[in-house]
C-alpha cells in the first residue's frame, strides 16, 4: 500500500483560480513533473476546477497528492452531481456547444480520469461529484 503525500489542499471559488494554478504548478514542479506535461496538467486542473465553478455550485475543494509514481488531483464540488457521461468521447466541434470541452481536454492530457457522484461510492447520500485525475511522474 503506497502512502500518499499531501502536497496541497485548497478551497476555491472563481476568484481563487489563479492562486490554485500557481499552487498546483509549484507543487507539480516540486514533485518532479517537467514541462510540457506540467503546463498541460495545470490546464487540466483549471478545466476541472472551472467546471466546478461554472456548473457545480460555484466552489470546490482541491486535493493534490503524490502517490507512488503519480501526481493525483481530486476536485470535489457541491453541485447537483454529474457522471463521466458528460465528457464527450470525441473532441466537440468548434461550431457546436462548448459543453464538456474542458473535461474532455483534462481526460486527454492526463493518464487517468474518473468521476464519482457523491452517494455512488457507498459513502451515503450527499450532493456533488469528485473528479480524480493523475499523471505519471518521470522516474528518478
Amino acid at each position: 500500500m503506497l502512502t500518499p503525500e499531501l502536497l496541497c489542499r485548497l478551497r476555491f471559488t472563481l476568484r481563487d483560480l489563479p492562486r490554485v494554478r500557481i499552487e498546483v504548478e509549484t507543487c507539480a514542479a516540486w514533485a518532479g513533473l517537467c514541462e510540457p506535461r506540467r503546463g498541460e496538467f495545470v490546464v487540466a486542473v483549471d478545466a476541472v476546477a472551472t467546471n466546478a465553478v461554472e456548473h457545480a455550485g460555484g466552489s470546490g475543494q482541491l486535493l493534490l497528492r503524490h502517490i507512488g509514481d503519480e501526481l493525483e488531483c481530486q476536485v470535489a464540488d457541491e453541485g447537483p452531481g454529474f457522471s463521466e457521461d458528460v465528457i464527450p468521447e470525441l473532441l466537440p466541434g468548434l461550431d457546436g456547444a462548448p459543453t464538456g470541452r474542458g473535461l474532455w481536454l483534462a481526460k486527454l492530457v492526463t493518464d487517468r480520469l474518473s468521476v464519482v457522484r457523491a452517494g455512488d461510492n457507498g459513502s451515503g447520500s450527499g450532493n456533488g461529484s469528485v473528479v480524480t485525475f493523475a499523471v505519471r511522474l518521470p522516474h528518478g
Partner: protein
Amino acid sequence: MSTSGAERWATADIRTIPVQRFRPGQHGFAAYGSDCGQWDVVSAFVRQGLALSEKVLVILHPSVTEEELLDRIDGHTPALEAAWRRGQLGLSSMRALIAPHHGFTAARQWDRLAEESALAVREGYTAMRAYIDMAWVDDLGTNLNDVMQRERSAQHLFTGRTYSELCAYDDRSFTDEVLTEMHRTHPVNLLAAVGALRAVHHHGGNGAGVRLTGEADIATQDEFLRALQTTLGRTTPGQPLNIDLASLHFLGAGCAADLLRLSASVSSPTTVRCTSVQARVLHRLGAGSVRSLALVVEEGTGC
C-alpha cells in the same frame, strides 16, 4: 484589489509581464495599493522562484514577521515548508542585508546582493530572486534621490542572469512623480494583479494584431474574446491577423477554443505566436483543422 492604486501603473506595453513570467536577470517594478494585492504577488513570486529552483529572498515592511509571511502566502505546504527549512526561502530586511553598516549606499547594497546571489549559485540554486518592498527607504531614513539613482544605474547586477529583483512600491507612501519615474526606469513592469489580462492592439502594414499579457481563463474570457474581436474588426478581409500569446502565462481550454472558433470563422490568414504548452493545447483542441491558422512557437517561452 484597488484600481486607484496599482492599476494606474499597469499599462500593458512591451515591458509589462505577469509575475509568473518574472525570470533571472530581470529588474522589475510593481506598485500596490492594498496589502491584499501585495500578498497575492508575493505568494506568486515566491512560488514561481521555487518552481524554477531559485533561491528566494523576501524583504518586506520591517514590521512583517516570519510567521506573518508564511501565513499570508499560505506557506504551510510541504513544498514551502521544505524550502524554508533548507534556506531556499528566507525573509530579511535591508537593515540586516547591509549590516554591520547602518546607512544605505548603492555600492554597499550592490555588493551584498552580488555576494548573496553568488552564494545561492554555489549552493546549487539556478539563481537568486529578491522581492524588495521599498518601505526600507523610510525605515533607514534614506534620501529618496539616492535610491532613485540606484534604481537607474543597477544594470550590472542583472547581466549574469544569476540575480533578479522586483521592487514593490506602496503607492500610498510614494508620490506620483516618484512612481512615474520608477515605472519608466525599470526594464520590466508587473501587471497589477495576479489573474489579470491586458491586450495591446496594433495595426500596421503587416495587418492587425493584438498582444495579450497575463492570464486567459474563465474570469477573463469575455475580455479575451473582446480583444480578439476588436482585432478582427480592425482587419481588412484577406489581410493577416497576428495574435501574440507569448506573454500570456495561462491559456485555459475555454479561451483556446474561442481563439480557434474565431480563427475558423475568418478568411484572413491568422498567425498565433505562442508557447510550446499553448501550442499543444491548441493542437489538441483542433488547431490542425483550421486551415488559415499558423502557430509559431516561441522558443524559451515555456514556463
